[in-house]
């Protein structure tokens, strides 16, 4: 079993949650989201983000608007829809349960 692979799988699972969380506070365009994710080492290659955004958008969890840029092509600014907001809340709860459970099991194995 490849440890890199497992890591990537784990990261990917929570990536949607993180994107929704980032967009909850303020609308952003992809490069900003990437910056944020990179800071937390949640993303290795940028390419990963685009299919994910498209999928979330197609699922009506996100919406976007175009904005002209001074230094390049026009940007897509993404924002959470109300459905996305609900979805985020649910994911958050699940994450808290999970992280609690995972942390707990990790600790109990340690001791």
């Amino acid at each position, binding site marked *: 079993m490849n440890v890199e692979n497992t890591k*990537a*799988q784990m990261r*990917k699972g929570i990536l949607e949650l993180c994107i929704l969380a980032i967009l909850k506070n303020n609308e952003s365009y*992809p*490069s900003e989201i990437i910056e944020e994710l990179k800071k937390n080492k949640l993303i*290795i*290659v*940028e*390419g*990963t983000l*685009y*299919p*994910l*955004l*498209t*999928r979330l958008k*197609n699922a009506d969890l996100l919406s976007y608007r175009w904005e002209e*840029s001074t*230094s*390049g*092509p*026009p*940007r*897509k600014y993404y924002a959470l829809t109300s459905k996305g907001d609900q979805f985020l809340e649910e994911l958050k709860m699940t994450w808290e349960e999970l992280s609690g459970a995972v942390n707990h099991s990790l600790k109990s194995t340690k001791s």
Partner: protein
Amino acid sequence: MNKTVSCNISGIIFNLEENAYATLNTYLTNLRTHLRNVEGSDEIYADIESRIAELFSGKLGVSKEVITEADVDEVIRILGNPEEYIDEDAEESEGQNKEKETKRSESAKVFMRDPDNGVIAGVCTGISAYFGVDLTLVRGLFVLLFFLTGFGLGLYIVLWIIAPRANSSADKLRMRGKPINIDSIKREVHEAAERVERYSKSKATRQKFETVKDRTNRFGRALGSIIGLFLIIGAAFGIITFLTVTLTEVGIFSSDDGERLISLYEFSDVIFRSDFQSFLGWTGLLGTVLIPMIAFIIMGMIMLLHIRSQWSKYVFILLTIFWFVSIGILTVTGLQVGSEFSSYKEIDESIGQVASSKLVINVPEVYGSDIGKVLEIDDEEFSNRIQMEDENIKSGFVALKFVPSEDSLFHIKTVKSSYGITSKKALSLSNNIIHDVHLDSNQLTVYPYYLFPADDKLRGQHVQVYVAVPVGGEIDWKGNKKQLNISNRSSKIEFETRTVEVDID
């Protein structure tokens, strides 16, 4: 100094160095291929292109106007390779069903033909890829099948019709059952690119005509293969037929036991004067017939397998020389044998005369009612009974001829004739013929065969029995008259003023 390519990425014009453009183009092509089965692929593609434009914009400034290959490499590093992000994504997003489907299409082999790497339609290439067998072996087997049964041709055509054509790199990978991911496609594309590069380098000066030439070459190759195949098949057929007729026992003459047929080869023993002449004759004949066949087969092989080599030229020159030598030998031998037939002599021998009004012709049963195989030449039928009996040749071509008698008696005579190199030789050969015919009162016994020494060879020795029939004379038959070669076709013998009815049927 580097050439630049200007291109539009997401609505912005960029100047890229040539190799930077090539790298980016490959990347985007790979991305497109990979996005094929992903929902919203156009949007994702546009987003990524937009991101590339953004990253490029960041690279350029007042002192830098061109995107270099290093820039492209860096952008690709930032974005990651498509297989790093899209494959996993697609699997997760499309759920169980899609996942299964993807896996199957990745591992299952598909039988397809690959005309780009094939000779005719790429069927053999397809089989080779599908079963992982060496291509040369598959082609060899097909050629063998063509030869042995002709079944190969049908099989090939059927496979040609049913097998889909492999068009894309992905198809070609599927043929081999290789997993289809961006990596393997890239490898394939890379290999193809290298091939093209090598080709164009070697023909740098003729680069312009490359595509046109390629196409005509392809057509020419396919045509060449078909012609080559036909040459091989035709020549092989010719050789087999020729050898069958000459060497095996499909000869036209039966041997003395009546069971076995004498082959033309054995028959040649009674034609040629000496072993040496026989050897020359056969060498000439075999060379004259077989050398062109061999040349056709070699030519066919060259066309079929597209062999290009220097030696073939010398082989053909050598074969041509041998061929002319063979023709020469055959001609000389033929003339020699022919000269043996240049003179003709016949010996008349009176058997006697019969005063009775009725002549009984007795033909002893030698061949039975079965007159054997009949050889038909120009509507004339000949019993094909030439046999070897000890040191003698036994021939069944005794002819009987009725002619009008000048008086009231039956007159019987035999004429033995032969050809020879000189009149003297012809005469002695005629003398050597032994034919048993005797007259006992009105009973004429005519044996249906004659003998002559095998050492005399076949020189057209012939025996004819003449029966002169008087007016009102009657012929009675005993035995099997069909064993004789009766030359009178009608039962009427023309006299100067009258005709006589003779029962010859």
